[in-house]
């Protein structure tokens, strides 16, 4: 149990750190095709999560994830706040108290459903979903091939570059959104890499 708690703290810390380190990059991506706040938003959210981390990591996985999601909803704002918030909250709702690797794909699929419902969106529209969906598919295929997961996520984020945005602020640009990586896709890939790193015990 204590090692589970350490794992939660390691995951949270890794995600918060990667967001913080890449905040400027995310903001720059958002300046190109959005309103230039994605890095700032995500950093504000995960700073708030980290401020509560001591209490959060004490909780079992479902409550832990719901707590993270709720904090993101209340602190991130913008489009990404409700969406990542919904993602984490639904993961918390779906996962059992003592989840094993095999539980994750199903929970993530449900969480993606919830994000799609909230965002009236689906994969192919140049959003975070273009990373989340292939990541869920890869998990479903092989829940233990962690390195592949990182590769899939990174490639999926890159692949949003040539896409035309149909959801998110970038959609206002029409064809002018083509040629830029989606900020929410990039932050999703960064989070996947951080979580995998934490699971593998890297720091």
């Amino acid at each position, binding site marked *: 149990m204590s090692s589970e708690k350490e794992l939660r703290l390691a995951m949270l810390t890794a995600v918060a750190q990667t967001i913080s380190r890449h905040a400027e990059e995310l*903001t720059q991506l958002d*300046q190109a*095709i*959005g*309103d*230039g*706040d994605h890095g*700032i*938003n995500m950093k*504000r959210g995960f700073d708030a999560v980290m401020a509560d981390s001591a209490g959060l990591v004490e909780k079992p996985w479902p409550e832990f994830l719901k707590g993270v999601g709720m904090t993101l*909803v*209340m*602190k*991130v*704002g*913008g*489009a*990404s*706040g*409700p*969406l990542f918030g919904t993602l984490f909250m639904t993961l918390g709702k779906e996962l059992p108290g003592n989840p094993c690797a095999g539980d994750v794909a199903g929970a993530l699929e449900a969480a993606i459903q919830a994000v799609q419902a*909230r*965002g*009236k969106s689906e994969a192919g529209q140049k959003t975070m979903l273009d990373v989340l969906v292939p990541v869920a598919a890869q998990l479903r295929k092989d829940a233990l091939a962690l390195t592949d997961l990182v590769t899939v996520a990174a490639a999926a984020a890159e692949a949003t570059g040539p896409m035309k945005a*149909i*959801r*998110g*602020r970038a*959609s*206002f*640009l*029409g064809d*002018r959104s083509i040629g830029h990586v989606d900020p929410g896709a990039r932050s999703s890939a960064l989070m996947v890499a951080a979580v995998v790193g934490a699971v593998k015990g890297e720091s």
Partner: protein
Amino acid sequence: MKKLINAVENVLSESLDGFAAAHADIVTLGDERKFVQRRSLKKGKVALVSGGGSGHEPLHAGFVGHGMLDAACPGQVFTSPTPDQMVAAAQAVDTGGGVLFIVKNYEGDVMNFAMGAEMAADMGVAKVATVITDDDVAVEKSTYSIGRRGVAGTMIVERLVGAAAEQGRDLAALESYGKDVNARTRSMGVALTSCTVPAAGKPTFTLGEDEMEMGVGIHGEPGRRRVKLAEADAIAAEMMGAILDDLAPKAGQQVLLLVNGFGGTPAMELYLMCNAARRILAGRKLLAARCLVGSYVTSLEMAGCSLTVSLVEDADLALWDQPVHTAALRWGM
């Protein structure tokens, strides 16, 4: 970045404190600065709540007061507020008549207000309805997009629905009136310079010395196209053309004209644009029944302006002329 600020993290809170102190006769600030609310509420009146990212001042907090909003939820700069803010605001200003959310059409705002409405319902705030504004013709309407952005026309919806609420109309009537006003309101903007989000520290976009962004959004979002700087008359012609082609009003129709500065454009230029826009209206035999010129829906210090046209009837004008007493719009009291 050159701004009159202390620390980037405190821009919003210090600004809200200054606002609340300067307008203490009209507004109070909610707990944790989650919302700005009207000082005196009217029992049973439908409460109007709006909000959105900050940096568009005076929208929305500057429109809290008699004849307009009951509360406004300020988000971080250019970032939608969070659902807890809408819940707290709705709880504070609901006096039994229900709450109408007026929301600009951005996914962030729409989703956060939607979550706020769900949570408010869970927590027992009687009824919540929502009007979404989407007046920006710069974005082509299409089923393959999230639709048009809500821009300066939002304040016209807030004003007219606010005046109607003051007269005691119920929630359903106000919701449908708000949608109706929004449907008759179109805007388009142009930027001559970028704005700088304090936390970002550098301009959102870069324009050459001879360029402008035609159809810009109120967060400095790119517009229809980046073009060579043109004369005021040509700019007005393009914007009014897009607006009027979309609205397709009949000759003789009364309209309300809003010439809105984005924050960095002086009144002198706005009045010049007003003059240009009025000539175009006259050329199409449209009657500018009311005309509002000023920086009402801004994008921080961006230079540029938007034009908004609302098709109005006598009943709308009668509401428009009712007393209003907010920080940024005031007459009749």
